């Protein structure tokens, strides 16, 4: 089956005063219909930039290049701005991290949701539009639809605003939703409600989803496949269960081991294994593998040569010495 979204060798560079900053390098992934792809990585790993590139929302100082950037039959690199507007919001829509600041504080939320219907389906008349918005608000689990429709963003809580954002994102029945840290700003009980709502939309409306987060737990519970990013590169991609139970890339393993929740009861108060050092400066990149200065299994070859992506039994890993099932390099 042809994937819904296909990305091959996506690279994004920014011009900065200090030189060219490669924020995303040779990123390849695909999303099939109805699938949830989870992207995890620490701040600065390029996960948001990659998604903004898909949406065409990057500033002018960026250079986006790719071998393929295809969504359905659209080539996302060569869209006219008119076509792009119809794809954005119509076929692909995005949910942002901070719901309070992503909504316009000057307009009632009802009319903000209506706006996207107005743009993408101008044939719908205003009374139907209003009806549609009320249905959407119900669909995202809002009980007092009337009040919320007339509210301004500051009158709603963070969780409510995120529901409104989701209603806005699904207003035109998109094929793909990009959720960029949709629950980072929310409390755990609200986070669980919002994630459950997204999972329901994915199940019932067959919407594909890219779930960007730094919380591996969220990906484990809600994604089918996972892509781990480090310093602008995808280091490991595969089915969630397989990657989490047997990570092949040392970075994935380190990320899991650094989580207190990964450890069993016996390890209470033991030091958490963590990678030494910091994420590399992308302008002055280390030679060889980007993880080599921090990797516990580093070998001479890693310091001089940059590993390319290897595909082994459906799993993608960017490492010369992938880890075996025992957790050590094979």
């Amino acid at each position, binding site marked *: 089956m042809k994937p819904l979204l296909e990305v091959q060798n996506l690279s994004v560079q920014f011009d900065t005063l200090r030189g060219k900053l490669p924020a995303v390098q040779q990123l390849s992934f695909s999303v099939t219909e109805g699938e949830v792809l989870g992207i995890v990585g620490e701040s600065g790993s390029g996960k948001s930039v990659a998604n903004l590139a898909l949406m065409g929302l990057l500033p002018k100082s960026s250079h986006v290049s790719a071998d393929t950037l295809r969504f359905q039959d659209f080539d996302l690199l060569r869209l006219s701005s008119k076509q792009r507007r119809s794809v954005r919001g119509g076929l692909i829509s995005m949910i942002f991290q901070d719901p309070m600041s992503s909504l316009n504080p000057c307009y009632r939320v009802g009319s903000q949701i209506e706006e996207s219907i107005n743009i993408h389906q101008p044939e719908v008349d205003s009374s139907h539009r209003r009806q549609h918005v009320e249905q959407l608000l119900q669909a995202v689990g809002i009980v007092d639809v009337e009040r919320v429709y007339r509210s301004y963003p500051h009158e709603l809580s963070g969780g409510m605003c995120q529901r409104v954002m989701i209603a806005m994102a699904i207003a035109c029945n998109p094929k793909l939703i990009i959720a960029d840290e949709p629950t980072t700003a929310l409390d*755990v009980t609200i986070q669980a409600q919002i994630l459950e709502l997204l999972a329901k939309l994915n199940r019932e409306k067959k919407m594909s989803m890219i779930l960007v987060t*730094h919380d591996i737990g969220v990906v484990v519970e809600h994604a089918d496949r996972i892509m781990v990013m480090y310093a602008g590169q995808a280091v490991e991609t595969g089915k969630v269960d397989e990657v989490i139970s047997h990570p092949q890339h040392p970075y994935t393993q380190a990320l899991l*081991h*650094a*989580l*207190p929740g990964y450890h069993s009861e016996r390890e209470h108060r033991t030091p958490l294994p963590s990678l030494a050092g910091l994420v590399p400066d992308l302008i002055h990149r280390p030679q060889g593998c980007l993880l080599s200065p921090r990797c516990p299994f580093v070998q001479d070859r890693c310091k001089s040569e940059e590993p390319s992506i290897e595909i082994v039994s459906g799993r993608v890993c960017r490492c010369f010495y992938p880890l075996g099932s025992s957790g050590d390099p094979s």
Partner: protein
Amino acid sequence: MKSPILQAIDLKKTFSIRKTWNKVQSFEALKGISFSIEKKKTLGLVGESGCGKSTLARILVGIVEPTSGEVLIDGKSVQSMDSSEYRKKIQMIFQDPYASINPRKNAGTIISEPLVINSTLSKQEIRDRCLSIMSEVGLRPEFYQRYAHMFSGGQRQRIGIARALMMNPSIMICDEPVSALDVSIQAQVLNLLMKIQDEHELSYLFISHDLSVVRHIADDVIVMYLGEIVEKGTRQQVFYETKHPYTKALLESTPHIRPSEVSSKRKLIRGEVVGHVSVQGCSFQSRCPLVVDRCKTEKPELRQADSGHFFSCHVVQ
């Protein structure tokens, strides 16, 4: 009988909010909080935003005055201490490493400041102590001259920890010390906090909304909801013999990392935190899955389940 190093007795805090036309509305941020921390132990405090975690932390270190109630350190009321003595006992690490460090001062000045104010040591002695503390928290001596913008989030948090350690306190209040950090840096800072706790025999009040962090580091745990303690006990009791429906909901809402632990039938609680309104009866009634009529009229008191395990609920036995 172990004697607690820090005791909070029935702490209450009411803020007044000025609304339109100068109408004043009062808001009870803390509704009678009592607990104690023993020497060299860590008390974890969990709860959602708006439950009063940070207000409590600020009262304990004396940034905010409680409306009523008392804080005792080593059995002595903090109101009877002078500020220098108070600061030597208790210090605080803040949540946001970007906002809690003065951008116009270098790291050395920031870390030294508590001693400059509260001691009579000479400049050289303060500098020596500062450098030794810096090396202890993993900051290189050449960082002494650097300014805040030259540090990463993890390093800034280390500066915050060094600053708190300068007074050689016996209690540290850690208000979400790792929430703003990335996972791998979070692990480094947690390891550091555990290390200095052992070396300096510190007692921690460790505030976090991340249950897995609290489970890893704490000995005893308090769960707060809307300014009240709803459950307290040892880590084992709160996490594995959970009583209160709110604690259960928190535990079920937290995403699991191991795929085998993900249960398909989790019960989520409805609604959100309703703040700023005083309700009759139990404060959790609007979201509780077990709510009965009695919860709406009568406020549940903290009851004891096992020794040291308290919870406030009419329904759960």
